[in-house]
């Protein structure tokens, strides 16, 4: 049904479209608080020293890092350059709580040398894992390039 340009319904539509909910800021803050408070699935991963020991002292005390923390570290470290970013990060943890495998799906920018990008990503993963889980944590790192995009891979 055609509306008159000056009809009340059309004017109401224009007013409704222009509405900016005054309470949006409080709703936004509430959503973000709840998101941060939402506990995502996570498993503890044991820290392993360079000598492959998990004992942190003479009593055999162990240190654990949540897999959520490791994934966040990998995610951020793989987002420092425009030619690649992670799309999927899967961690395999064995029955002894050791990290044994990291699988990364990468999105790369068009024109990137893919084997080199995969090698770089593998290096980043190795460094992050060593920093967070100790030099004795040496997982297999599989990298798959699953998409190529035009422009900055982090923004596209």
């Amino acid at each position, binding site marked *: 049904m055609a509306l008159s340009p000056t009809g009340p319904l059309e004017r*109401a539509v224009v007013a409704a479209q222009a*509405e900016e*909910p005054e309470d949006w800021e409080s709703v936004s803050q509430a959503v*973000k608080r709840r998101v941060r408070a939402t506990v995502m699935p996570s498993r503890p991963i044991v820290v392993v020293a360079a000598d492959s020991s998990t004992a942190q002292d003479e009593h055999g005390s162990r240190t654990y890092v949540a897999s959520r923390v490791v994934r966040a570290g990998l995610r951020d470290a793989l*987002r420092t350059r425009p030619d690649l970013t992670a799309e999927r990060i899967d961690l395999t943890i064995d029955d002894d709580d050791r990290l044994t495998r990291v699988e990364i799906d990468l999105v790369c920018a068009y024109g990137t040398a893919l084997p080199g990008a995969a090698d770089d990503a593998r290096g980043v993963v190795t460094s992050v894992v060593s920093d967070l889980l100790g030099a004795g944590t040496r997982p297999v790192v599989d990298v798959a390039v699953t998409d190529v995009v035009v422009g900055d891979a982090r923004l*596209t």
Partner: protein
Amino acid sequence: MHTLHTSPVPADGLEPATDAALVRAARLGDDAAFGELVDRHGPGMLRYARRLVGGSEADAGEVVQEAFISAWKGLDSFRGDSSLRTWLFRLVHRRAVDLIRHRRPTPIDDDLLSHVIRVADDNPLQDVMDSELLEALQEALDELPWNQRAAWLLREVEGLGYDEIAHAMGTTVGSVRGHLHRGRRQLAERMARWR
């Protein structure tokens, strides 16, 4: 030593991240990236929710919060069959239906929620303020059957296409056309009193 970066968008980024890039980061647990999606799409979702649930800011806020929490927990289920915006409107629509169902003893049904159309029998001044017009619009919307109200809001206020509305409402494009046709006719009749 690696460096941790907390911003979902690189500091030197000159262009905003696309929804796809933010979804990718959020799926990896990046709540800051999800926060950008919240601020990008939330105002429209809140506007839609408020008009849909009868103008209550508290109810609309609750609906939008629940929709976003569902989105955060269910990002892996978003396959890109629709735009992210359409998917988010679908979540708002579902949460609004849940809210109304909990408030009413009967299921959501256009026939049950339909009211008798009031005939315009007064003649207010033409030069009304926007706020008064919006108040009148809300009253008119409240009298519309649920699906007509939802389809009309998504089309006329939020600008979604017919297929997007069908996805958001979980119905067919043909049904959307029917809801829109009837909704426009009834709203025009109800608002005619403001002419």
